[in-house]
């Protein structure tokens, strides 16, 4: 099933981008697509940070609250 974005809308991504994102633990809803009609393509996920890393980076901020 195609992942949904934060707004509940379908995320458009190429199959290869999905595969690589899954492999790297990247949440596609946070990736900006540079392909046709904003489609997320391989290059977008290859330059994106894994979700785990992104979450870790945010952790101190939420701790501080």
């Amino acid at each position, binding site marked *: 099933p195609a992942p949904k974005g934060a707004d509940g809308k379908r995320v458009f991504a*190429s*199959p*290869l*981008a999905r*595969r*690589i994102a899954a*492999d790297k633990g990247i949440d596609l809803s946070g990736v900006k697509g540079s392909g046709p009609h904003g489609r997320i*393509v*391989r290059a977008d996920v290859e330059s994106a940070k894994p979700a785990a890393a992104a979450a870790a980076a945010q952790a101190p901020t939420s701790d501080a609250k």
Partner: protein
Amino acid sequence: MASTSYDMIVIGAGPGGYVAAIRAAQLGLKACVVEREHLGGICLNWGCIPTKALLRSSEVFHLMERAKDFGLSADKIGYDLDAVVNRSRGVAKQMEGGVKHLLKKNKVDVVMGAASLPAKGKVAVKTDKGTEELTAKHIVVATGARARELPGLEADGDLVWTYRHALKPVRMPKKLLVIGSGAIGIEFASFYNTLGADTTVVEVMDQVLPVEDKDIAAFAKKQFVKQGMKIMEKAMVKQLDRAKGKVTAHIETGGKIEKMEFDTVISAVGIVGNVEGLGLEELGVKIDRTHVVTDEYCRTGVEGLYAIGDIAGAPWLAHKASHEGVMVAELAAGGHPHPVKPSSIAGCTYCQPQVASVGLTEAKAKEQGYKIKVGTFPFIGNGKAVALGEAEGMVKTIFDEKTGELLGAHMVGAEVTELIQGYVVGRQLETTEEDLMNTVFPHPTLSEMMHESVLAAYGRAIHI
């Protein structure tokens, strides 16, 4: 001449140049194309198109010879070489006329003459009437390429031919030597061999069709040999002794020299870019061997100066030239086009059997460190192939084991030049093996083998 100042001037009206000019005009640019010889370039006049017209005649001839296989019959099956060649020239002429019409329709100015670049932003054109000077913000060099001539193997038009001579032959060769088994060499070999010439192909690399996947080249070779061609790999023509109506070729193979006699030799040992006499180096453009060095957007480094198509280097293919033409036109109009990735450009060879491929060969994929999944499927397992009486061929696909990326697809057999686009579309859309597995290829078609080959890479083929 209505005007001398343009948004874009294109030098050379081949598939790179005329397409760039038309696209520029579509985008509202004032465009001009300068051509010294023929609209449509090598492609329409002495390349892609007339060769395919010749090959169609030999294909139909071959089918006629096989009439009995299809329950048909005919007496005295023959060809008239002049008529075959005239048809080919006629097709080229028709296409050239089409380009003329398209340029006019799109309001692209056409200047017939030889161009050079006297200064940045300037184009000088030597026409019948003298030299004209034109200016433009964007200048696109699309002057193409010509046959490479090796010392001692130079064409003379009588005994030794380039593709130009081979397209308008002075005679039907009886004993033909083709030097070089790239697309151009093998297409002529296929054409003349089918029409009855005793044909020998000499290839310096260790396989015919050197850029193709090993398995595909080996399969094609077997078919060529079955058709009566003699194929010499890892062999080199060192010398041609020309006499009256006769050439003695000195062919080095396995450290020994073999002497063989031919009445005709076709030299197809590559091409060189038309970089001379343009004033490129004077403007600061870098030239590597005979090709202009550009970035991925075809920019030369000199502001407003682009180089596209054959002159900008490999792959030397018309569709690469045309896509680069569209890209530079869009750049010039302020757009943000995507660069053309060489790895998504398919190569087609229209010999019998046809060969087509895109992406990496198995060897290249391994060389680049991929762990791969490889699938193959033979034509003999395909209903349409058998129904067509074209059961010789194979499809091979290569996937990245980790991501499922389709790294390469390789085909040999009937109609594969028309089939390969499905894989090209797949690669463009970043397909994985799964998408191709889920695709419903229509039955009965040759294209079902494209599906089976993917399935085969994962041990799931049905008809094998």
